[in-house]
């Protein structure tokens, strides 16, 4: 086999393996239901709770979007499907406002089973108090009735 052929074969391997990963063919997901389940729809209970909150829910939803929370978390109301962090629809449905707030500003205080500690960005204590209040109330309303 000539040197040129060796180079062509190497190039083909690199393009297939790395190129395939880049375009998302067999990205190597963990295959867990958490990672592959489609986003849930909002429940009637959460829609009612969000409607009751009104403008507070709108502001909380905006804070959620502006801070990239959906990049890591799945939340049906925000149509986010992040899988790096816990599925918020499933993990905070029964949490109190205080618990949700603590999980945002001090994520290492209590881990979520199945997720490594320290993966959650810990800079959200920088949010202003009104932003944090809106976000916490929005998250509780958006996940209520789960």
């Amino acid at each position, binding site marked *: 086999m000539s040197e040129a052929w060796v*180079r062509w074969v*190497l*190039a083909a391997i*690199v*393009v297939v*393996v*790395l*190129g395939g*990963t*880049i375009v*998302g063919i067999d*990205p*190597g*997901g963990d295959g867990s239901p958490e*990672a592959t389940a489609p986003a849930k729809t909002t429940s009637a209970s959460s829609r009612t709770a969000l409607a009751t909150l009104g403008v507070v829910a709108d502001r909380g939803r905006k804070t959620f979007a502006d*801070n*990239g929370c*959906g*990049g*890591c978390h799945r939340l049906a109301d925000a149509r*986010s*499907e*992040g*899988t*790096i*962090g816990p599925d918020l629809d499933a993990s905070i449905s029964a949490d109190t406002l205080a618990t949700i707030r603590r999980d945002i500003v001090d994520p*290492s205080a209590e881990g979520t089973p199945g997720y*490594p*500690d*320290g*993966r*959650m*960005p*810990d*800079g959200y204590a920088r949010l202003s108090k009104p932003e944090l209040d809106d976000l916490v109330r929005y998250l509780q309303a958006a996940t209520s009735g789960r």
Partner: protein
Amino acid sequence: MSGIFDLLTGPRDVRPVPLAVLAAAAVAVGIGAWEHAHLYHDGYSSIRWIGPLFLVNAIASLVVLLLLIARRPLAFAIGSLAISGPSIVALVLTRNGDGLFGFRESGYDAAAGLTLGAEIAAVLLTVLGVVLARDQLGVDPPPPPPEDVRTEVLV
């Protein structure tokens, strides 16, 4: 423009030892790129600035690997350093201070550790390969012009 042209038409062959070192650097670049592409599809794609940069890293690494296979060692070396150096800085920044573009993470899990190790290895091996092949890559300054030899003419 001529600089880019020179890179692509410059020296194409290096000795076996530096070539092996550069090939090892290419493997490290490939591992870092694979991990970036994998993480991109594992949720990072939705993170503002960070997600697109992960994709840029993977695509640029693919191009750089092809440059070495196409016998463009100097272009590969420059590309490898241009990708891996900033990647190391970015990884460290996301774990210190205000983070990178507002994105912060804590600690180094397996994926972050593998990526950081691969990027550091890529930088070290690339620098070593360039040093070993510096005479072939035109990194050394050109030799001084020959001394003016005066010829005595005997009449």
